[in-house]
């Protein structure tokens, strides 16, 4: 943490062993000042996060226990877990959940493979490294809605180049499974570069000597990859997987533009939005919000449990 400060105090203590009680007092005075300054500097960030994230979460739990429909505000009352029963026994909710899980699993799996390839290219290419890295940042940076419109028009019969060539003039976005596939592709296009960058950070940690030694010992390229690179990169791979899984699970923008959730293609975020902003049903909307939060917490928990300390957050403050 505070290398400089610790060294300083260590020196101070070592230099004046006789004055230890006094030095200790001065030290704790300094420590106190340091603590105060630390808390003071963090205060604005903590206050904002508490007010705009912490409090609303608690409030949404409260809202989820109410019958609260803005169209019928008079009928607002405390209903306990009724909303949860309503949502959890609703086929639309489970359909949205499966769609979300499907998109998450498929896109993250493909992104891992593609992202690894991209990371290797970015890391090892002999020519034009700057150009490759610059262009891969474009999908990462571009506004998701913009990219989604590009895909939508590409797949729209009559307007798009993909609709005629790949889909043979079929309106793919109006059928459930093809539409989900298109949404997944859009998601993969947009976020593979991010995955690749995180993986590239891991690749940079693989010692070149180790690869050379393995090559000398006759390891094939594939063996070098699986036996040398992957083990060293494991923490980076897990971080990338966790980040992307949680991110994919909240998919909204792409779906909104590409299908608007029609033909049963809603994700859980999309369904919540529709209930909340379109349906103005705050009670049900909040219930879904809480359920999504729980689902994300479970995913994160499973990651941390499965992969232990390699996952981020498990040792968040312990980085030096």
């Amino acid at each position, binding site marked *: 943490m*505070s290398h400089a400060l610790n060294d300083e105090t260590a020196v101070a203590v070592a230099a004046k062993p006789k004055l230890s009680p006094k030095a200790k007092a001065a030290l704790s005075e300094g420590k106190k000042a340091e603590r105060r300054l630390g808390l003071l500097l963090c205060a*604005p960030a903590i206050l904002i996060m508490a007010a705009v994230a912490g409090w609303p979460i608690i409030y949404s739990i409260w809202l989820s226990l109410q019958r609260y429909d803005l169209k019928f505000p008079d009928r607002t009352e405390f209903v306990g877990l009724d909303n949860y029963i309503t949502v959890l026994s609703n086929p639309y909710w489970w359909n949205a959940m499966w769609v979300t899980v499907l998109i998450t699993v498929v896109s993250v799996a493909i992104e891992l493979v593609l992202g690894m390839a991209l990371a290797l290219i970015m890391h090892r290419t*002999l020519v*034009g490294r700057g150009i490759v890295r610059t262009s891969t940042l474009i999908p990462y940076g*571009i506004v998701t809605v913009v990219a989604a419109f590009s895909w939508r028009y590409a797949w729209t019969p009559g307007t798009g180049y993909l609709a005629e060539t790949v889909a043979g003039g079929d309106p793919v976005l109006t059928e459930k499974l093809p539409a989900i596939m298109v949404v997944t592709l859009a998601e993969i296009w947009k976020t593979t570069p991010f995955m690749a960058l995180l993986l590239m950070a891991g690749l940079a940690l693989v010692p070149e000597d180790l690869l050379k030694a393995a090559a000398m010992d006759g390891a094939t390229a594939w063996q070098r990859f699986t036996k040398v690179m992957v083990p060293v990169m494991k923490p980076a791979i897990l971080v990338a997987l966790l980040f992307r899984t949680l991110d994919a699970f909240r998919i909204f923008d792409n779906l909104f533009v590409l299908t608007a959730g029609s033909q049963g293609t809603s994700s859980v975020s999309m369904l919540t939005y529709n209930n909340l902003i379109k349906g103005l049903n705050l009670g049900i909307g909040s219930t879904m919000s809480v359920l999504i939060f729980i689902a994300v917490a479970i995913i994160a928990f499973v990651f941390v449990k499965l992969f232990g300390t390699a996952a981020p957050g498990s040792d968040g*403050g312990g980085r030096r």
Partner: protein
Amino acid sequence: MAGIGGAVTTGRKARWTVLNVLVVAYALFPVLWIVSLSFKTKETLGDGNFIPRAWTFDNYAAIFSTTEFVRALVNSIGIALIATAVAVVFGTMAAYAIARLDFPGKRLLVGVSLLIAMFPQISLVSPLFEIERGLGLFDTWLGLILPYITFALPLAIYTLSAFFREIPWELEKAAKMDGATPGQAFRRVIAPLAAPGVFTTAILVFIFCWNDFLFAISLTSTESSRTVPVALSFFTGGSQFEDPTGSIAAAAVVITIPIILFVLFFQRRIVAGLTSGAVKG
């Protein structure tokens, strides 16, 4: 980096070039397509050709003549800039404390901000919708700036504390020993070392705010605070029978320009910023 077991031959270079071209094509194809759409005339918009047969600036002229788009652009720029400025200032303060000072609750703060970064944003939309309506923040700039800051702060703290850990802070002491005042030591030594990290973080945070759609569509209802991504999805064209495709494409290209500029000029920094926290995490 000569690769393993082999000199750099023309053949290897050629192979890499092919791969690179594939990557560049992958990244640019959808972008070029929307650019192409934005330059198509009304008549050729539906021809499905990747390259426009007839070029026009009409779509751009059309969107810039509507208050719907211009207002949204002003909102987008204003909201993203303010949110970025605040998030970076508060983030810098917190990251400095996390990187250099010892205080209780530090681990908790890092943990909680990671949690927020991973948070499903929709979970915040329902309560914020209700809270902001109550406080009169719904459909205002502040109503969007606040959640943006909240989600940008973890990103800022995370990235900046990784950067700050790399700064050789001993230099500050050395400067003071050489007779510099604390102010001078900060201005001449620490600020120049910290500036690249702060700048990089500002870019990442700006991209995040610029990109947001969910909060913007849920917490606004009129032109007065709608940002461009949302305005885009409401474009309807001049009349019921007019196709908004050209306008949407042109507006999409306009809001892509800042991203392209960032990427072109600060590629190295953005890569460093995105990867800084990842490995050590």
